[in-house]
């Protein structure tokens, strides 16, 4: 009875249904996810290593200037559209704000089905966005802003099951794309600003039964538990709101974690493990195999959630089985994946950073300038801003150019004043006045010169190979391809851009309907390559725009409303 009444209130809404032959869908296996076919984009970053790379090369540096619109689809939703068009042999799956999944014919743009999940009326949606589906077997999986994990039949959009992952009333919500591996669907949770206790949880792909759950914030008595005072771990943040990566050889999944909660470190004396870290978990059991905390006792809202990148790089003549991350803390981190731990290799700032006075060459532990470290009742100016050198927005790695591409915000600083805060379930738990957060940005002459950057780094030498500058912000996730290209949007002029991956020359740009904060993807059907991205400005890009508007002499209005854009080359002849 309970189940049916829940279904009445929250059940699926099938808005359109077109029947595909049951045999038409190509089941997604572990083997396919581990070595994806070039023509497909089967998961959030295209591969388990988190690269945002496709070997497809029909669209390349020579012909990209001719790139044209193949089709467009309006999602019918406002707010931040961040999810990649995920493609499996001609079928495209896209999520949008509004807890919506859309399936389309990737070649023609014809809608096959559309699913919307009804959320509770009382839900507060701080980040009404979604970063995509996971494909596994014959199902499509996505998380919702009321913290549910839902499995749909890929061919029909019919709901197979849904499970509550955590309690939305206590501030848990899901915006990430689930990660599928070894018969499991892995998710984490957002809600650091609401005082959640972060976790990674795995669910059986066929039944939805929970297999394991590992908290990112240890309890007293557990390893790392002594890095928190008393019971503060229960609301210690460390949320996990961007998908992890997976190393099938070692059966280890790597996840980035958010900042410790609340924001001011004097409220939680200690290192606050495993917030602001990367953690390595055993895929079968969820057991913590290793971690590296990028920076302890966070004071700046510097979540380190973006997908840890598995990249083997050269360092002093050795090949290192690496883990790479362009941090919100403004440092580029080069780590090493070891069987039972994560090692520190090197780091350096990729944007203006005035907080770290040094980084220990052995452990990678930073030392802070106390005058740049906010606290309760203390006002502090620091760089980079609270959105960091790079927020959630994914980097990309190209194994042909051997360059790492970083969508950065440089030169930007913040001013924050910590204030007392008390915990109440489901309410904000920050410790900085909202009026302060809304106007936190500080811009000097350097920032007025430019903020947004697309950077290319040679990891073996530590050299910045090229940099493209945007006048204002960059919130554009990156894609790189075998055609020597880098694609990304992110600017407040609504444009989607293509760069020469070797030189950084901008080869093409296109004004879309809104600002592009979506993850781009690429795929091939019938010998033609396509590049796809969602346009739809909102959430943190709009928040940063509001903060810019508060300090700049001009205001910029970026129109909202989401659309999926798909581009290809014109037919020859």
């Amino acid at each position: 009875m309970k189940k049916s009444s829940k279904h009445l209130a929250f059940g699926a809404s099938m808005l359109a249904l077109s029947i595909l032959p049951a045999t038409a869908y190509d089941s997604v296996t572990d083997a396919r996810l581990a070595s994806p076919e070039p023509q497909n984009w089967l998961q959030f970053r295209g591969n388990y290593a988190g690269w945002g790379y496709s070997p497809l090369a029909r669209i390349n540096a020579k012909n990209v200037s001719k790139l044209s619109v193949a089709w467009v689809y309006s999602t019918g939703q406002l707010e931040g559209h961040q999810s990649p068009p995920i493609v499996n042999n001609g079928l495209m799956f896209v999520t949008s704000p509004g807890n919506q999944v859309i399936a389309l014919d990737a070649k023609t743009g014809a809608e096959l089905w559309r699913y919307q999940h009804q959320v509770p009326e009382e839900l507060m949606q701080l980040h009404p966005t979604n970063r995509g589906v996971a494909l596994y077997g014959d199902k499509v999986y996505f998380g919702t802003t009321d913290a549910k994990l839902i499995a749909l039949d890929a061919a029909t959009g019919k709901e197979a099951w849904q499970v509550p992952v955590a309690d939305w009333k206590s501030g848990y919500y899901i915006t990430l794309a689930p990660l599928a591996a070894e018969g499991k669907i892995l998710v984490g949770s957002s809600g650091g600003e609401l005082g959640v206790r972060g976790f990674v949880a795995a669910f059986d792909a066929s039944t939805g039964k929970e297999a394991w759950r590992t908290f990112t914030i240890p309890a007293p008595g557990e390893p790392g538990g002594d890095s928190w005072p008393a019971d503060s771990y229960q609301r210690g943040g460390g949320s996990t709101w961007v998908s992890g990566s997976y190393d099938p050889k070692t059966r280890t999944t790597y996840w980035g974690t958010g900042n410790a909660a609340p924001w001011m470190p004097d409220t939680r004396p200690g290192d606050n493990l495993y917030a602001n870290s990367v953690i390595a978990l055993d895929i079968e059991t969820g057991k913590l195999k290793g971690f590296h905390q990028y920076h302890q006792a966070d004071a700046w809202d510097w979540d380190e959630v973006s997908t840890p990148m598995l990249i083997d790089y050269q360092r002093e003549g050795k090949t290192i089985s690496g883990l790479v991350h362009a941090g919100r803390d403004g440092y580029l981190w080069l780590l090493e994946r070891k069987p039972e731990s994560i090692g520190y290799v090197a780091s350096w700032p990729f944007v203006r950073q005035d907080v770290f006075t040094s980084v220990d060459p052995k452990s990678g532990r930073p030392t802070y300038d106390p005058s740049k470290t906010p606290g309760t009742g203390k006002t502090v100016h620091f760089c980079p801003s609270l959105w960091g050198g790079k927020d959630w927005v994914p980097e990309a790695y190209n194994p042909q150019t051997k360059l790492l591409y970083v969508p950065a915000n440089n030169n930007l600083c913040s001013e924050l004043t910590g204030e007392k805060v008390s915990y109440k379930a489901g309410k904000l738990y920050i410790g900085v006045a909202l009026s302060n957060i809304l106007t936190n940005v500080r811009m000097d002459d350097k920032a007025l010169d430019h903020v947004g950057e697309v950077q290319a780094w040679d990891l073996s030498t530590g050299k910045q190979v090229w940099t493209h500058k945007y006048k204002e912000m960059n919130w554009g996730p990156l894609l790189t391809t075998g055609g020597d290209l880098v694609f990304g949007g992110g600017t407040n002029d609504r444009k989607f851009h293509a760069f020469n991956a070797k030189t950084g020359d901008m080869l093409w740009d296109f004004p879309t309907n809104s600002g592009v904060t979506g993850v781009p993807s690429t795929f091939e059907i019938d010998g033609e390559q396509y590049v796809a991205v969602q346009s739809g400005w909102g959430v943190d890009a709009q928040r940063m725009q509001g903060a810019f508007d508060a300090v700049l002499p001009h205001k910029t209005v970026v129109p909202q409303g989401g659309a999926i854009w798909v581009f290809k080359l014109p037919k020859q002849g």
Partner: protein
Amino acid sequence: MRTPGGRSSGECLTRRTALHCLALSMATGMFGEGGPAFATGVDSARPREGDRLVAEDSEGKPKALQLLDIKIGDKPFGAFPFNPADGIKREGSRLNRIILVRFDSSELTPDQLARSADGVFAFSGVCPHRGCDVTEWNDKDRMILCYCHLSQFDPRNQGAVFAGPAPRPLPILPLKSEQSEIVIAGEFSSEPGGAKAID
């Protein structure tokens, strides 16, 4: 397991079924099943004429807000309605959160003044965009501001959208005063709460 907003709480969301909802709560309260109940001094029915207001973070026996508690130019004051007859706070639904802002009554038109209690206006404290708590104030334009996605609402124009993504005005709640106590004079102009997911 308590599912978020299962059918019974869904039925509590409209004013029309509020009495039924209250009765249901009493019944479940008696059987110890949890949920909003008289026993806990909380209910979910929408605010109604004659209700008084209490500061949102206050505990214990509610103390009715006075006109003097709301200062001109301050950021929105968060409150919940309560029934003065039995002191029961209507905070079982977060959609009953109310915000109060004040203007100098000498600068208000007769129409504006009539919606206020001596220059104090009441609105839903939940943004009609995505359901965030509305807490902030744009002092320059004297607009109510939602920090969440930067929607702004005009308190002197019945909560009309001034800027941002909100699809409709912030519901207004008419006020009057009795012996300098703030008293609710009617119902919300429209149902409070964020946009429905399925639209």
